């Protein structure tokens, strides 16, 4: 008989407790408490320059915490990265880059293995065949089959973003960290990518943490949001956090959250990110 085991998912796939990050003597954010459960779609929101990408880097173990703890699948940051799919913030690939989309996706699967692919290995290596099948599968999943064999630099922003999501998914991660994947996309592409990410989250049980500047394209899909502002943070369901009261408290300035007729939220009176130099003078 199997002894009853405590499912690590009960403690959350990703947990931050009192986390703070400092760069130099400047505290980007502090007091972040967040529990992300398996299969949830969570957004990290906040104004530009507040350190949302920094939170992703801290989860990946690329940046140390100044205070508090992070646990990723029950382990310290950085030790479970092979189970994380990561899509960094970027503008796009260089138009001159002469590598196909399918090559970029494949690197997500085997790019960290030493050596070089052996020509004709699919004839005798089951692993190579499985890898090739997996690459085809994730490219189909993101609907990129039609253009996956074109040079990646020549594709549109939306097409590149789909291939990068496929790359992040290739190694069957349990956690997907997406840093502003909707940035610099037009509105139809924003909603298409948001729907795609939500589908991956629901159907394949992949936990998603997405950094976003604008909550509206993903609002309908979210289970939980964490709102970071200079000084503090708040986590909860979207309708708990994105309220006039919570945001006004976070920013220490009056902020109004309006609901449009189609249910979208609009944040009014959101202050600009603090300039670095004025921040230093306070220390």
């Amino acid at each position, binding site marked *: 008989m199997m002894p009853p085991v405590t499912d690590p998912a009960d403690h959350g796939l990703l947990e931050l407790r009192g986390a703070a990050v400092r760069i130099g003597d400047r505290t980007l954010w502090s007091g972040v408490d967040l529990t992300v459960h398996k299969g949830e779609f969570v957004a990290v929101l906040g104004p530009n320059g507040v350190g949302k990408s920094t939170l992703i880097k801290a989860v990946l173990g690329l940046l140390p915490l100044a205070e508090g703890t992070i646990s990723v699948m029950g382990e310290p940051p950085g030790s479970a990265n092979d189970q994380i799919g990561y899509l960094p913030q970027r503008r796009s690939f260089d138009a001159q*880059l002469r590598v196909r989309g399918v090559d970029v996706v494949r690197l997500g699967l085997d790019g960290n293995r030493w050596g070089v692919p052996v020509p004709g290995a699919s004839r005798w290596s089951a692993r190579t065949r499985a890898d090739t099948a997996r690459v085809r599968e994730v490219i189909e999943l993101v609907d990129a089959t039609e253009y996956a064999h074109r040079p990646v630099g020549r594709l549109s922003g939306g097409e590149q973003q789909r291939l990068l999501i496929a790359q*992040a998914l290739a190694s069957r991660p349990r956690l997907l960290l997406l840093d502003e994947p909707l940035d610099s996309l037009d509105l139809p592409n924003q909603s298409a990518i948001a729907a795609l990410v939500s589908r991956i989250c629901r159907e394949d049980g992949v936990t998603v943490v997405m950094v976003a500047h604008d909550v509206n394209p993903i609002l309908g899909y979210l289970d939980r949001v964490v709102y970071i502002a200079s000084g503090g943070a708040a986590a909860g369901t979207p309708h708990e956090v994105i309220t006039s009261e919570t945001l006004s408290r976070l920013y220490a300035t009056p902020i109004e959250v309006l609901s449009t007729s189609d249910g979208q939220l609009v944040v009014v009176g959101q202050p600009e990110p603090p300039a670095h130099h004025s921040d230093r003078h306070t220390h």
Partner: protein
Amino acid sequence: MTSSGLDPQLTWNLVQDVRQVLEFPFMVNAFRAGTIVAVLSGLVGWFMVLRKQTFAGHALAVVGFPGAAGAVLVGISATYGLFAFAVTAALLIALVPGGRGQGFSEEAAVTGTVQAFALGCGFLFVSLYGGFLSGVNALLFGSFLGITSQQVLVLLLVAVVALAVLTMIGRPLLFASIDPAVAAARGVPVRLLSVTFLVLLGVAAAEVSQITGTLLVFALLVVPAATAQALSASPRVSLVLTVALGLTVTWVALFVAYYSPYPIGFFLTSLAFLTYLLALGWVALARGRA
């Protein structure tokens, strides 16, 4: 000795011409050295073009000039000077704070500084030698004459080691070149790979210099790779194409140079340039038709 070695005549019978060329040990050595160099420079150059480090490649080649001149000045083989200077310069460029990632412009600045300093030193060494260092032209613009069997052996050993390292790091290096942030998150040692690659680039530049001279290294280091990448976006196809183009250009240039009074550097660069133009024309034509 017949006149054929000193004043060769092209018979237009290709088999006979090739046989005639290969009758002379110095030509056999030239073909051996050219083949080794074309393979190594093609494969290393392919990554260099992909990583947009052509400027670093150029600097590492130019640094060979003071290396070779200095070696001759102190009375050792130019080969050792080429390798020593190229590898040292590669490490210098690699150790720029910031390095690759955010620091491309910084890398370019340091590269330019190292390159200017190196050329200045080379000029000084030539002056110290007494104003006339025989073979300055060969150091700068290449020569295929007088490559000894021992030099071929050194070229081969170095190339085998360099290619073994490149084979070992090939896939992570591609990952780190295209997508450094994701590669780092997946545990690829991006910084270490970047340093290793610069050293490989220095070694390749030093090898090519011995055929093309330090100033014409790009004929084999850049042009075949750039041509192949223009023709195909598949890494496997363009790597094979790079080596094939490099070998063709080298062999044809050696063959033509043997029958002509003009220097090999000119034939190498013109042939490489011609293939590049043809490839661009072909790509433009194919795109127009599509």
